[in-house]
């Protein structure tokens, strides 16, 4: 069983108090929980949240499955989100996605040997610096293919030295 951290528990309690019904707080709580669980949400997480919030687990699951921005599978240590919306697409966002997938051998919906996961996403609000990608919480902008590969290589190396 997944245990919710004290920090998240505090967050949930505060969030629930902001709304008329507890159900309204499900989305922010799920996002907080996702951070707790290495970037994705398992059935166990939902069960724990359901117990803590006292909402039927299927109600949380309905919300969880409706939105695509919650990760339903493990995303490894580094979750690369490549923007493929208009501005980035015109500046080679899709190519960037393909190059990164091939270079680091990341399969769709899978995690690579280096613990990388990759997904295409819609606009991340950084159109002026297209193409761009987000790795975990951090933005990398004005990318070229080589630059992007170097960024990822550096990240893998920094993980190894730690």
């Amino acid at each position, binding site marked *: 069983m997944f245990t919710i951290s004290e920090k998240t528990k505090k967050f949930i309690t505060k969030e629930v108090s902001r709304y008329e019904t507890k159900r309204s707080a499900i989305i922010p709580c799920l996002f907080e929980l996702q951070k707790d669980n290495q970037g994705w949400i398992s059935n166990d997480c939902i069960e724990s949240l359901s117990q803590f919030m006292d909402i039927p687990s*299927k109600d949380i699951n309905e919300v969880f499955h409706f939105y695509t921005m919650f990760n339903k599978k493990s995303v490894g240590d580094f979750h690369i989100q490549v923007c493929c919306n208009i501005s980035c697409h015109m500046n080679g966002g899709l190519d960037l996605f393909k190059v990164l997938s091939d270079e680091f051998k990341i399969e769709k919906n899978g995690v690579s040997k280096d613990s990388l996961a990759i997904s295409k996403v819609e606009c991340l609000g950084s159109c002026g610096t297209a193409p761009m990608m987000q790795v975990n919480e951090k933005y990398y902008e004005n990318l070229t293919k080589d630059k992007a590969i170097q960024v990822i290589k550096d990240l893998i190396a920094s993980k190894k030295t730690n």
Partner: protein
Amino acid sequence: MSGKNEDLISCSVNGKTISVPKNTSAIKAFKIAEQDIAHYCYHPGLSVAGCCRLCMIEIEGNPRTQIACNTMVTEGMKINNQSKQIKEDVQWGLDFHLLNHPLDCPICDQAGECGLQDQYMKFGQYKPDMNQKKVKKAKVVSLGEKIVLDSERCILCSRCVRFTDEVSKTHELGIFNRGDKSEVGTFNGKELNNDYALNTVDICPVGALTSKDFRFKQRVWYLKKAEAICTGCSTGCSIYLDYNEEGFFRVRPKPNEDNNSYWMCDEGRDLYQHLNKEKRLVKVYPSKKVSTSNFAVSSSSSSSSSSSSSSSKKAIKYLKSELENIKDSTKIGVLVTGQYSVEDYKEFFSVLKEKNSINQIYHWFDQKNSKNDFDDLLIRGDKNPNTKGLLEVAKDMSLKVIDSSELKNTASNLEILIVLGPEYKKFFSTIDEKLEYFKQALQVFYFSSVKLDSLDSISNVTQIPLQSLVERGGTYINYKGLKQKLSILPQVIPKILSFSQIAKVLNGEKIQLEPLFLKTQPVKDNQFSFQKN
């Protein structure tokens, strides 16, 4: 035409003026005015979802069409669903519902009682313009012990989801994913096994949820429905029994605002099994003593299958002669369950009282459940449909009612113990204890419609078959004093004596045996025909 009663308001539905109570939704007004209106997601026992968009109506003075289920009727409101606009709305709505719905009606168990079929016959447009590929989803998903889900057939009306949220309050079902990938399902393999789960099958307007017990047993147009009450507990829900000449096939709840609203429990749905041949007591099983008396000599001379009524008659005559030999009425015990109708008790007790001056009865009540147990919905701890009726009859006839546990002390003194046994043995947890008492009495005459195998090994018990509850009919009084009358249905097993005939034999009157056999009538109206408008 304002209503005289302040709680009533008048409105006009398709030009017909009616008065309805305040806070009535427009869809209810249509039902009251007996006007057809297309709908799926609306169910009178559930909250309003408004997701099927079929119950479109026009309100005079209102430029846009609206849904009737979520519109409250106000004084003087004029609503109709007859205009060309509404008809087109409904036709297109129906076509969108069929967008991903497989047209597998010939192999679908719901066919014949399917909301989608019925509505399309009435309101559909009959020239499909949709030629997109249908989305494939999971089929034959087991949702627990009782229910199977076919996601492709589901039209996402959310009735089942609302049922588990609002009525059973068990929250198993939800609608997951979105768009045309939306599916009804349970979370993390949780099973839909609550005590009321099968109601979701009844309210499902399509063949998405089907009952494992009933599916593929019968086509529904070969079934006749009969009104009855469930005798599984003291709530006495109103039910429909679906049957044909092959027997009974299923039990469904009948809407009854005074008692069970629109629901019934899953336990009660096994009722039909106890009415069919397989579980019934079909002939007399004489005890050792009875079979060595002249009873056996005469019964063995006639063929065993056709003689069930004559052998019951002989067994009862034998009981009568034995009863006459006993002068002390305290040596006769009468053990009754609350499973029989008021009329049955009256007939049976009055004979025993007159002929044998019986003045007390033992009341067999399930000890495991307390009488006041209640699950806050329908199921009650008292598993007898007519405990109240039994006690009333006993009071009227000034019979003393003793709890059956008293038999512990008195059973060994009894020369004859007459038992009106349970009809559903699974509801009686203390049956083994009773068998011990039976062994102590000198002779036991056990009346029941249901075969109890454990009695065969007890040598002093004579088992005599009774008609089942729907063959006997009669009045049942439920926990709150609601009197419900059962109508008499054709007999599944012919030539079983009725209660009044048993009483007559005990009284020394002659009965005629042959007219008893009520031939099962063939199912009428089994031609399923429809016409295009």
